[in-house]
């Protein structure tokens, strides 16, 4: 099996999987019916992407493992998502901040992945980028609304941005699989996305009349499978049925 390619795909897909799972938790609890539908839409888009990625990964694995095995039967140290996406839905400000900080990266990432020499990956990127550009528009609009809304909303979104800022740098770390795939012109060199990312984020935060956090210390580890305490609990939901009723079809 092409191990680097397999791990590379999981690294991409796990972000969408965990973020999709988080957004799915909001269903029925949004601040308005319309927002509820919008957040569920994002979850649906992300999980749809995950299925495309994992189905491809299963093919590469070449055994009888399925998209569900990959999604739901790994151990906690084998999930490669960044720490940002596993942060909990504390309140709507946190949800929007997390979404925004990821979307800016995700959109830029997919724009590059479209150029991959791996035709399946570039096709997936091609399809996903339309959805993700909508996500980015949605989340950045809401950062503006909350930042330049009421004093209460400004306080909440500022706090959320401050809290989550420490997870942004990890987006631009490279794993062994990342580096190998870049060499083969299959993968995206995420280190090159960093400057534009912070520029876009800072511009938008300013437009939203928010302060840019000045912390210089960043968390990391998700891409190496060392997660925050949140992931364990998230996985108990995600994996429950597959673990409790093993080897069955649904």
């Amino acid at each position, binding site marked *: 099996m092409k191990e680097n390619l397999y791990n590379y795909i999981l690294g991409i897909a796990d972000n969408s999987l965990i973020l999709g799972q988080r957004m799915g938790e909001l269903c029925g609890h949004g601040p308005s019916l*319309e927002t509820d539908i*919008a957040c569920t*839409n994002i979850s649906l888009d992300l999980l749809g992407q995950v299925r495309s990625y994992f189905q491809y990964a299963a093919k590469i694995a070449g055994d009888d493992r399925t998209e569900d095995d990959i999604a739901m039967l790994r151990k906690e140290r084998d999930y490669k998502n960044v720490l940002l996406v596993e942060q909990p839905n504390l309140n709507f400000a946190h949800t929007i901040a997390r979404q925004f900080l990821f979307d800016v990266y995700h959109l830029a990432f997919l724009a590059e992945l479209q150029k991959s020499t791996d035709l399946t990956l570039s096709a997936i990127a091609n399809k996903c980028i339309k959805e993700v550009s909508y996500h980015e528009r949605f989340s950045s609009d809401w950062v503006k609304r909350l930042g330049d809304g009421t004093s209460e909303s400004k306080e909440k979104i500022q706090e959320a941005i401050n809290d989550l800022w420490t997870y942004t740098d990890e987006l631009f770390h490279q794993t062994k699989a990342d580096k190998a795939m870049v060499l083969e012109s299959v993968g995206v060199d995420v280190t090159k996305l960093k400057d534009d990312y912070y520029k876009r984020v800072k511009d938008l935060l300013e437009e939203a009349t928010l302060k840019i956090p000045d912390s210089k210390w960043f968390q990391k580890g998700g891409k190496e499978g060392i997660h925050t305490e949140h992931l364990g609990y998230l996985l108990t939901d995600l994996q429950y049925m597959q673990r409790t009723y093993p080897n069955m079809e649904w």
Partner: protein
Amino acid sequence: MSKKNWPLWEIFVRSKNGLEHRHFGSLHAADAEMALENARDVYTRRNEGVSIWVTESKHITASNPENNGELFEPAQDKVYRHPTFYDLPDEVKHM
């Protein structure tokens, strides 16, 4: 702090192969951008190549239906009954 409710917007959608925009329904949004985003999410879920028009319901002037001259002011009529127009009688509160 003024507590205002999100105004009501009317949504018109033209599908990819359609010739004109059709009225799809209404929804609440704080401003036009949100109305467009909400309309996309609610009325055109995952449909590509559609065109969406949104306008606040209060900006629509409707022609008068024929049979009710007695009860409504002529001309310049709005599409919906306004919530403030009626004092909800007690009966509505009891099911």
